[in-house]
């Protein structure tokens, strides 16, 4: 199967309609783990997008060579290669980011989002489309990570991207930067998205595709 | 039968104790109701195959004449309860809520001409088979509520040997007292009826189970058993609902547990109601088919409550009028007691063989004010005599998970109502359970089809 959407739609769908986190519930681990601050979310999003793009490129190029039976092994090796590249890159040039994302960068290898896109899309579509798809998905992923990061950071530390925004009167809710806060915030965010997408709620809702 | 065994009041686990309200009627002697002008006799008054009418519009019938029958074994014939003319064989409202085929008979004058059955000279020597046939011919069914044909109970399959007979004199439902009155007023005939059934079954051990709130009945029966030289054991039972449900009764009296989904005969027991024993006696000794029974007409909406012996098929309205009629503020009328009784919307419905009472209640007593969500208090679990988890069953039925309903044992529920009685949230648990039963049966049938 190859996709029949317009190129623009191919790109745009990942941002909201088929958003990897909100709609497909993929890539939840990094989404939850690194969003205790907005900039961590951003960095993770960027790294993931990089891996997504480069492995899509490779895999859609190689899609006709890799036999079905070893595709998982093949894809995952390709993905892991790019993750290692990214990981080492950060460690070499941005050691502080590398430190704060801790062990979650290598886990991009097994982020379901990436393998999912390869199986669902890149292995069946041409390079151009695959890149568009990955870019859209990547941006959708970054958006969710950043939004989640901002919410958690404001409530949990009183700052956004490290800048204090709430005054002294505000006592940060430390739980927000701890695991329970991550789950609760994502849960409420998903509920809000459900509400927003509810067709019965209002007719004039803006469909992004 | 030792003295000490009588002091021991036995019972089953769990259950509830609703207010009894039996003193409205339990001390009043029963009355024989005057003959009704018309009766409506449903063609099916028993568990099993429905009967075919043997009469047509315009036929004259005598009291006790067989007017409907079926060739099926698990079925029971129907007899005219008054002497008169058949005016119609068609559908009329039934206490169950539906309209079902009935034979409508109008009385001709004051006559009450009986057509009796042929009885053996001496039941003690008659063959078991003949007696069984006679019980069937007389249309005797269980009068304790379920109306299961008695002759079927009297002929258990060979692989289920019966060793005990239990006479069910519990009458655990609030308000009802007809069994109580029968025990006091017709003691000998009931005991002999029981002896007849035991003879048919060919067994020696008989137990009469009576709730201990009927001390007079226990005493009377005890005395008569002695003087009639019978070897029945009298078992006083704790006043607890649903003590009269046969599985609970067997557990209390014998400590045997009827297997889930099983029948009393699986543990070698037959249970029959007091009134059933009376009906058997009347059939076998007097040759009278089952055309009348005692029923309790009571409730706080009845002018003068009492026990009536009335002809089967008499419209509720007539029975109620015989007790002085209804007070104004009536909101509910049930057939049976308040725990298991069926609501009625129309007093034109006739009494059935299994109608043990008509209870009329005022609205102030009944209207459930508000329902709350189940708070998982577990009270219902604590009272269910069948050890079910009613809250779970109702939630499963509510969310249409009928397969799970089955797994949680919905079909074991005897619909005694104990759970809904205690539920502080006012959840109609029994109704949900019934929905669960109906729907899972449907689902099962569909899967098989």
């Amino acid at each position, binding site marked *: 199967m190859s996709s029949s959407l317009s190129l623009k739609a191919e790109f745009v769908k990942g941002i909201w309609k088929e958003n990897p986190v909100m709609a497909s519930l993929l890539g939840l681990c990094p989404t939850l783990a690194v969003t205790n601050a907005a900039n961590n979310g951003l960095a993770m999003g960027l790294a993931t997008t990089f891996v997504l793009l480069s492995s899509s490129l490779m895999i859609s190029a190689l899609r006709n060579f*890799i036999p079905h039976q*070893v595709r998982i*092994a093949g894809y995952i090796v390709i993905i892991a*290669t790019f993750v*290692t*590249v990214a990981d*080492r890159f950060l*460690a070499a040039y941005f050691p502080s980011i590398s430190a704060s994302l801790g062990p979650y960068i290598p886990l991009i290898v097994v982020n379901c989002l990436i393998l999912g896109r390869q199986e669902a899309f890149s292995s069946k579509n041409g390079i151009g489309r695959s890149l568009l798809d990955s870019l859209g998905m990547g941006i959708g992923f970054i958006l969710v990570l950043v939004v989640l990061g901002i919410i958690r950071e404001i409530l*949990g530390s009183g700052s956004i991207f490290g800048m204090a925004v709430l005054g002294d009167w505000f006592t940060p809710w430390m739980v927000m930067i701890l695991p329970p806060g991550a789950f609760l915030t994502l849960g409420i965010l998903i509920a809000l998205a459900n509400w927003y997408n509810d067709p019965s709620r209002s007719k004039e809702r803006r469909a992004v595709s | 039968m030792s003295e000490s065994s009588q002091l021991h009041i036995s019972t089953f686990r769990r259950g509830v104790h609703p207010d009894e309200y039996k003193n409205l009627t339990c001390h009043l002697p029963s009355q024989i109701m005057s003959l009704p002008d018309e009766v409506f006799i449903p063609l099916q008054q028993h568990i099993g195959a429905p009967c075919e009418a043997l009469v047509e519009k315009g036929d004259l019938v005598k009291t006790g004449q067989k007017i409907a029958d079926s060739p099926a074994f698990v079925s029971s014939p129907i007899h005219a309860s008054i002497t008169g003319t058949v005016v119609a064989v068609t559908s009329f409202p039934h206490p169950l809520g539906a309209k079902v085929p009935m034979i409508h008979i109008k009385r001709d004058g004051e006559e009450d001409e009986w057509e009796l059955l042929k009885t053996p000279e001496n039941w003690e020597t008659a063959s078991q088979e003949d007696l069984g046939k006679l019980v069937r011919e007389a249309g005797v069914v269980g009068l304790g509520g379920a109306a299961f044909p008695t002759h079927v109970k009297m002929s258990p399959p060979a692989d289920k040997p019966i060793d005990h007979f239990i006479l069910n004199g519990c009458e655990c439902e609030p308000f009802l007292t007809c069994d109580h009155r029968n025990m006091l007023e017709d003691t000998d005939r009931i005991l002999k009826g029981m002896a007849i059934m035991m003879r048919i079954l060919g067994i020696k051990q008989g137990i009469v189970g009576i709730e201990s709130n009927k001390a007079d009945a226990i005493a009377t029966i005890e005395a008569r058993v002695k003087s009639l030289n019978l070897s029945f054991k009298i078992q006083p039972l704790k006043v607890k609902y649903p003590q009269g449900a046969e599985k609970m009764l067997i557990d209390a009296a014998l400590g045997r547990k009827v297997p889930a989904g099983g029948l009393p005969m699986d543990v070698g027991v037959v249970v029959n109601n007091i009134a059933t024993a009376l009906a058997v006696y009347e059939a076998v000794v007097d040759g009278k088919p089952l055309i009348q029974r005692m029923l309790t007409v009571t409730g706080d909406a009845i002018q003068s409550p009492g026990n009536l012996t009335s002809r089967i098929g008499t419209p509720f309205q007539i029975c109620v009028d015989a007790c002085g009629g209804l007070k104004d503020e009536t909101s509910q009328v049930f057939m049976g007691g308040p725990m298991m009784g069926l609501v009625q919307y129309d007093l034109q419905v006739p009494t059935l063989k299994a109608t043990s009472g008509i209870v009329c209640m005022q609205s102030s007593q009944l209207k459930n004010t508000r329902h709350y969500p189940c708070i998982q208090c577990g009270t219902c679990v604590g009272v269910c005599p069948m050890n079910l988890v009613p809250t779970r069953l109702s939630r499963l039925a509510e969310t249409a998970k009928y397969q799970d309903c089955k797994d949680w044992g919905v079909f074991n529920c005897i619909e005694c109502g104990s759970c809904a009685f205690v539920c502080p949230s006012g959840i109609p648990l029994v109704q949900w359970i019934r929905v669960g039963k109906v729907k899972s049966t449907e689902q099962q049938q569909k899967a098989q089809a």
Partner: protein
Amino acid sequence: MSKMNLSTRMILVLTLITVLSGGILAGWDTITKPKIAFHRQEALKAAIGDVLPAHDTYMSEETEFGTIYIATRDSSEQPVGIAFMAVGSGFQGELRIMVGLSPDMTQLTGIKVLEQIETPGLGTKIVVDPSNKQDPYWFPAQFKGVHVSPELVVVKNAKPTHTNEVQGITGATISSKAVTDILNKQIADIKTAWTSRGGPES
């Protein structure tokens, strides 16, 4: 390619991918390795610099209790301080603390918590305490000059009165105590290791 038998193709393709991957990564390794090593070194240097008084160079020496770093000034062979990495468990997980000691090993010259996963905003006050506006780094800072014998002691909600006492952070006694416990234990170890090698004649 399609003519090839499936098994051969499977083996060939996967081998190709893995070989390529191995190659690319080996190449990337050569590029990044020095940089990463450099960062490590820098970080280590910075940490030692933070916990020891000014010095020009240091040398590292292996002992059975880990590496110790002996800092000296250019002009003399006399060490100005000894640093080592103390590791132990905190409230949630491992703490790694760079510890600076005076050459005679009686006084701390500073500590720096390099790695920890304490509860943010609570246990993390052992690194930085934003609730203390004047000096967010007060907790590690107070170790400078504290005597290590008798053992370090945490006092709660009060100012230290003895030379071996430090004030605990509020709300996270365990984290504060974990730091002192780790120090107490490992300073003792290092001391034995060092003296057995003919370290400073104390």
